[in-house]
């Protein structure tokens, strides 16, 4: 058996991660690359990091990264992560999942975790459709796009995720495409260092499924679309950040400070306990 050359980032991956299941040119791989690069550059203590994922192609990522990790049921990575974080505030808890998992079946959990300003990081890989089940319409599928479940064209208005996140109370919101991988890595680093609910949307390509149904074409054509349509404008109005075929607004949209659920909870607990001490 030939020993494969090691990639400098291999140490951050489980063996499965080095040979992931994702298709040729899938943006998930770039996000994986970007995420572990961020871990490397931040020199985070991997023993204190938990990666939680949901269902879908990207759901596999938890299994690929060499940290404590949990692959939950469809739509539930966020409440699971909330449990982990509240149980052990020392841990950094990152949710990495897809647009369908986080915003269709899991939408309710997302907005409430953001509202509570749970101190977790959520990374959403948005590929505009359900890839693993064969390219069905999802909460981010653009109008009129035909998918296997919208054969006559999508008649649903898609979510503008950064707007949703900002509106729900996230303290850090950023959006990048996989082409902007270096900026993505920087945003992930920022999110990881941020206290409170941070959200990073990764506009990602699904060449095998979405690429074919939309006739965008080869992986590189996807990248060219990102390049053509991208508009970097930091702290612009998230409400105006809808994605269209010729405009993908990118950048940081929100970066604010706000006490986290965890902090307030600990405050209450100490108050309660000191009161009791006084009382007893």
């Amino acid at each position: 058996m030939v020993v494969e050359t090691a990639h400098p980032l291999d140490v951050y991956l489980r063996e499965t991660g080095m040979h992931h299941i994702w298709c040729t040119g899938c943006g998930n791989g770039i996000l994986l690359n970007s995420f572990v690069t961020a871990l490397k550059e931040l020199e985070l203590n991997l023993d204190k990091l938990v990666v939680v994922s949901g269902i879908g192609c990207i759901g596999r990522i938890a299994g690929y990264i060499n940290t404590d990790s949990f692959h939950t049921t469809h739509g539930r990575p966020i409440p699971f992560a909330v449990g982990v974080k509240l149980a052990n505030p020392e841990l950094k808890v990152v949710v990495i999942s897809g647009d369908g998992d986080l915003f269709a079946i899991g939408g309710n959990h997302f907005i409430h975790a953001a509202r509570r300003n749970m101190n977790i990081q959520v990374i959403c890989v948005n590929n505009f459709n359900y890839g693993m089940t064969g390219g069905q319409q999802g909460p981010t599928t653009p109008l009129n796009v035909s998918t296997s479940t919208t054969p006559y064209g999508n008649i649903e208005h898609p979510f503008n995720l950064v707007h949703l996140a900002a509106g729900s109370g996230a303290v850090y919101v950023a959006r990048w495409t996989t082409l902007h991988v270096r900026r993505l890595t920087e945003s992930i680093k920022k999110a990881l260092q941020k206290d409170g609910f941070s959200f990073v949307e990764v506009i990602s390509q699904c060449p095998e499924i979405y690429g074919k149904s939309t006739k965008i074409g080869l992986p590189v054509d996807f990248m060219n679309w990102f390049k053509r349509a991208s508009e970097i404008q930091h702290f612009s109005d998230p409400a105006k950040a809808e994605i269209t075929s010729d405009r993908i607004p990118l950048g940081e949209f929100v970066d604010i400070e706000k006490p986290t659920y965890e902090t307030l909870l600990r405050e209450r607990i100490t108050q309660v306990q000191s009161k009791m001490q006084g009382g007893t």
Partner: protein
Amino acid sequence: MSEDQPQNEIKPQAKEDEIRIGVYICHCGLNIAGSVDCEDVAKFASTLPHVAISKDNRYTCSDQGQDLIKKDIKEHKLNRVVVASCSPRLHEPTFRRACEEAGLNKYLFEMANIREHCSWVHLYEKEKATEKAKDLVRAAVAKVVLLDPAVESEVLITRKALVIGGGVAGIQAALDLADTGYKVYLVEREPSIGGRMAQIDKTFPTMDCSICILAPKMSDAGRHPNIELLTNSEVQDVKGYIGNFKVKVLKKPRFVTKDCSACGDCSKVCPIIVPNEFDVGLATRHGIYTPFAQAVPSTYIVDQNLCLNKEGIIKCDKCIKACERKAINFDMKPEQLELEVGTIIVATGADVYDPTSLQNYGYRKFSNVITSLEFERLINAGGPSAGHLFRPSDMMIPEAVAFIQCVGSRSDRGHLYCSNVCCMNTIKDALLIKEHWPDTKIYVFYVDIRAFGKGFEDLYKRARKEGIIFIRGLPAEISEDRKTHNLWLMGENTLQKELYKVNVGMAILSVGIEPRRDSDIIQRLLVLSRTGDGFFMEAHPKLRPVDTPTGGVFLAGCAEAPKDIKDSVTQASAAAARAGILMAKGKVTVEAITPRLLDEKCKACGLCVKVCPYNAVVLNKDLKRVDIIEAACAGCGTCGAECPSSALYMRHFTDEQIMAQVDALTEQDADKKIIAFCCNWCAYAGADFAGVSRMQYPTNVRIIRTMCSGRVAPKFVERAFERGAAAVLVAGCHIGDCHYINANVQTQKRIERLWKKMERLGLNKERLQLLWASAAEGERVASKVKEMQTIVNGVTPEEVEKSKKMTGKA
């Protein structure tokens, strides 16, 4: 702008019931009285309509003379005054003041120039001169009747200045203004201020280190609370007028924020390596860099064209990672700044002549042929060779070097003018070599050595004493020894009258200075004019050397002409002073010779808008008329001349007034006369100069003064012919020298149209002459009149009759 119109002004003048004119004929000692019978003229004047009193006295400009006028105004209730004496260019202000002191509006005064234009040029024809004097007085009286009182309007000046160009001139101008207390925007296209002077090693004649004396000034400019430094920025648009300019500046992103500590760590890791412009390509720099050690601002900059990070995609993040202060930001976007300033100083500097085209010198062909600018970097201790005079081919210090003067200057191969600094620069450079490597053999090949400035000659003498060999006669050709890469210079020593063939290790081409290749942009934005050489033109070569024809805009440094550091700095301070005066006043008064719109007549055809050199007339579509921006208007009157429906009332030079002058001058034996329209700045002044120089010419010419030849409407010329004038002369500044930028171009067009018309009507078009004469060209005026005399003689009564019906028949 109609709101500027003073309310107390009646327009057009509602005539008082009784006009009472006082006429004063001055003897000017014998200057006038010598060849004009002044009493006779005075007597004649008294017969003219509305003349209340008419007097002659020895010196009307004397205090007694002025007191007399004031006394008369009060006692005789004069409401108009005419003085017949010297040129209005000399004493009009004097007499206007006198009138004002007596409570008469100064615009109700008129002069008849019976000295420069009469007595002095007709010394030996007293009778005819007297007749001419009478005519001129009659014309003056005719005009004065129609004059309107006027109040000069005022324009407020924004107390902020824009300096374009951050070379030593720009820096100096900015510092002077800032120290005076004015806010200054200093706009520089390059990443750092400093300009050419920062590149130079030593300065002549004092031989002190250029950057050492410049750097403190640069940082002063950088630190000055009143100076806003806008580097890496370009002026994109200028709107407005004196005191009220609105300037758009594009501030291009540096991609490095103010947090930069200029540590240079980013540069070290940058994979992009290119030749450094500052070192004229003799050294390298990185894609993220600072142009030179003393740069201001010291903040580094990313070379947008070469950096790997384009279209917002960060591909290379080496510098970002290397920067501890997180000062690198690829999200910076270009900024459009809108500045409001009252004055502008143009200090855009100059380019250096590129000798590549002079193939006989082999620049770019032979590596050891370098330019004087390359030499400056080589000899500079901070330069790529750390001050060692390495020759490019082998990095050896040459035993013999040659300087070749006037490369690109004083020659049809390049520029005709002298670049002013090269001689001294070469002498300085030669001495520098001697200083470090005394045994070096140094030749200087020259045409003339021009060591005119303070301390220059001494330096030149020193150079000769040091054994530098000066040979008159530029080499015809330079050839290279393939093996040694030494150079052979061949040419003729024009003093010894013998051929020379000199062998040197390195040849330095003393290249000239040329106008910025993109001067036209600034020229267009600020409506400036340029000389034939292409440098910006001053308002007056002697008396307003740093002003431009555009009010509120001034010149400094090599933008105006090649000059050395000292002159640049001097001129910069002068420009700053001129701008400072305006801003200190806080307002300017505009001579009441600007047009007023007769709305009812205006058809909003827009012809005037097209011809106005100052964009001071703008079409107002809503109100179906044009608006006149008084402050931008210089009063040339070409708009009035263009207006087909006489809707523009050119104050103090109205159609009626000029017509009245024409009529008056053609009242008697018109068929013998030449009616001349002369522009105030060149032709009229030229005629004055002819007078001062006592040039004699025929007496039958009658000169009418307009501010610009562009004011001369075809109908004035036609009126003259209708009145039976034998010939008409229209005279103005040379094309390109127009005091009103290019108004005289319109003159030319109008005259050509008239010529065509005359041809159509079968008139001898020679009877209408067009003359370009500068203030210094009295001779041209005189000889023109002589030349026209023969034409006048040739004009037959029939022709005169024919031309009397000139109008209408078109």
